[in-house]
């Protein structure tokens, strides 16, 4: 991570431009499990890799120049990179040498343009057939599902190969909700880019806005006021709470346990209403901006939050009893959709999914960001790796968020909530941030030009390292358990497709 040419303007983590040999050495190290690859992206010219070293817990970015439009494949030795490489090729036209998968990923042949991120070329927009991996044998049949699904959910395609009821192979195909967000952010003023960041995945709008703001503030080396830091964390915990509660209900609903779903939906609605009362928007979109936050918490808001908490703290133990004591739901969730710790570690899989299979990573702890080092909380954990474990970890995190919200309300300093103006950097600056959303660690990397506008931005959803594992999890389960397994993951389509 430390070899090669250091880029001076990279904050808070160093970035080094390395040669072929060092790039390959980095790949070898992560493929041996000595570190995690937390991101792989391009700015159109170079390819960058975000690395976490296990021994030192250091984070760093290594970059390789691609003068001939090619770079040595990471996915060749480290499969979690495969889809990211395919996305880089689709958007920027850079080829991963040695990769085993040359199918398009985000590009379905419908944009009327190839590699829109760098030297775009016009093309036919007639659509392309996709070569799904074969599963052959007399008793096998295929079930195509999507992109339009049966529920009120996002679009994507799942191709099941089944032997009777048992799934032999699941292959995912995504990109349906690709909106070209990276290119919309390129050369956008800060406020527009922040609005876009808040719409990468609407369920994680707070976490994305926070990651974007943190990255920009790191690049510009500005500190936001203490009260803003606490208000941001308050919003982030409310978002986590609302999503985890909703997910527990939805998982139970997919096993036809609608009583839990009904009560969880009521509690989720109460959280959203309190959020609206405090911050003026049920999902708290556009409330976090580079420099601070736009709404202060009023006395009325604080009272509403205390009331919400005291009600929720009474009802959650009853949810725990209801879930834990009902054998018919346990019968569906225990043992279903098993995910082993080996895959989780290899993929650097974050969030509830990783923590339910023994990978304890939480960006609030490592690398950690304000105000979490000043607050005490327990990260949820389990080792069973099944749907049931993912429900229990969600319960753990709900309880942790209760404690966090109380501490935040208690410790929140008085003072301003936003810095009015930014210094003009007068040179290119780069910033990055890792933020723990309800789904896992969200990474945002940003390059600002001399005027302080966004030159390039790359938001990386945690789902990139979770979706591939769903394919592994479903193998050997029955088709009817797919919705249950899928909901226990609850990965993002929009955040992944960008």
């Amino acid at each position: 991570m430390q070899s090669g040419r250091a880029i001076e303007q990279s904050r808070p983590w160093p970035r080094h431009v390395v040669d072929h040999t060092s790039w390959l050495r980095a790949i070898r190290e992560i493929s041996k499990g000595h570190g995690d690859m937390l991101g792989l992206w391009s700015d159109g010219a170079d390819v960058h890799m975000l690395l976490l070293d296990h021994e030192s817990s250091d984070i760093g970015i290594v970059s390789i120049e691609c003068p001939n439009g090619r770079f040595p494949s990471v996915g060749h030795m480290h499969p979690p990179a495969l889809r990211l490489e395919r996305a880089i090729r689709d958007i920027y036209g850079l080829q991963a040498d040695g990769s085993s998968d040359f199918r398009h990923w985000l590009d379905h042949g419908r944009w009327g343009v190839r590699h829109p991120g760098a030297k775009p070329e016009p093309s036919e927009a007639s659509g392309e057939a996709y070569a799904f991996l074969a599963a052959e044998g007399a008793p096998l049949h295929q079930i195509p599902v999507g992109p339009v699904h049966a529920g009120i959910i996002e679009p994507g395609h799942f191709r099941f190969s089944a032997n009777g009821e048992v799934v032999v192979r699941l292959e995912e195909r995504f990109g349906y909700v690709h909106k070209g967000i990276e290119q919309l952010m390129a050369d956008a003023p800060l406020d527009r880019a922040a609005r876009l960041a808040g719409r990468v995945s609407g369920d994680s709008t707070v976490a994305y806005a926070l990651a974007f703001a943190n990255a920009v503030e790191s690049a510009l080396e500005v500190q936001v006021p203490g009260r803003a830091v606490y208000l941001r964390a308050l919003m982030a915990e409310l978002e986590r709470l609302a999503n985890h509660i909703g997910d527990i209900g939805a998982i139970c609903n997919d096993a036809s346990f609608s009583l839990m779903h009904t009560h969880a939906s009521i509690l989720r609605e109460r959280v959203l209403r309190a959020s609206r009362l405090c911050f003026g928007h049920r999902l708290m979109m556009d409330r976090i901006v580079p420099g601070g936050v736009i709404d202060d918490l009023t006395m009325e808001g604080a009272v509403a939050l205390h009331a919400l908490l005291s009600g929720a703290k009474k009802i959650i133990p009853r949810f725990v009893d209801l879930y834990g004591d009902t054998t018919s739901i346990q019968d569906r969730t225990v043992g279903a959709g098993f995910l082993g710790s080996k895959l989780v570690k290899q993929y650097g899989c974050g969030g509830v999914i990783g923590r339910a299979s023994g990978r304890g990573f939480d960006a609030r702890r490592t690398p950690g960001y304000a105000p979490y080092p000043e607050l005490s909380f327990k990260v949820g954990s389990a080792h069973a790796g099944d749907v049931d474990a993912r429900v229990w970890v969600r319960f753990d995190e709900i309880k942790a968020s209760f404690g966090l919200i109380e501490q935040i309300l208690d410790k929140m300093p008085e003072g301003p909530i936003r810095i009015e103006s930014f210094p003009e950097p007068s040179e290119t600056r780069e910033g990055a941030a890792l933020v723990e959303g309800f789904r896992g660690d969200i990474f945002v990397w940003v390059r600002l030009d001399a005027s302080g506008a966004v030159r390039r931005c790359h938001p990386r959803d945690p789902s990139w390292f979770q979706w591939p594992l769903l394919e592994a999890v479903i193998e050997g389960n029955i088709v009817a358990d797919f919705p249950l397994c899928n909901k226990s993951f609850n990965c993002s389509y929009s955040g992944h497709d960008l």
Partner: protein
Amino acid sequence: MRKFLFQGLLRSPLTEPAPALDEAAVAELAGALTKASRRRLGRSLSIREVDAGSCNGCELEIHALGNSFYDLERFGLRFVASPRHADVLLVTGPVTKNMREALERTYAATPDPKWVVAVGDCAFNGGVFAGSYACVGAVSEVIPVDLHIRGCPPEPVALLKGLIALVENRT
């Protein structure tokens, strides 16, 4: 489980009274709903939701319509799993080019008479994603739209108002 069931018997419902109708929405619908179709469908509509590139924000709020506070089904509105069972398509998102054909095919699979409700600012004009190489923009550029419900995302009450206007005979 017993506790929850008893509580359901003893406490008063959380469901809130129906919101007053939005005049603009009613006016927009006046042209779209004919007497004949109202006679055929009665006061109930089956809705198929289609995400055509949304960030998932609109979906969260559409989901919320089913909770006890809004209780969508009391108005004769329900979500169905197939366009073939639907009277109404509820479409969100700036219609990504990768979803355009799926949206067209979903519309074609919906039997007549049918209505399209475009939900959210993206579905109205592309929203923050307007102008992208990967998005068509407004839903109305792909299929005919009968009603727009604006917002980013629209709150459940705004969605309710629009949908109730669809079933109410107020023209």
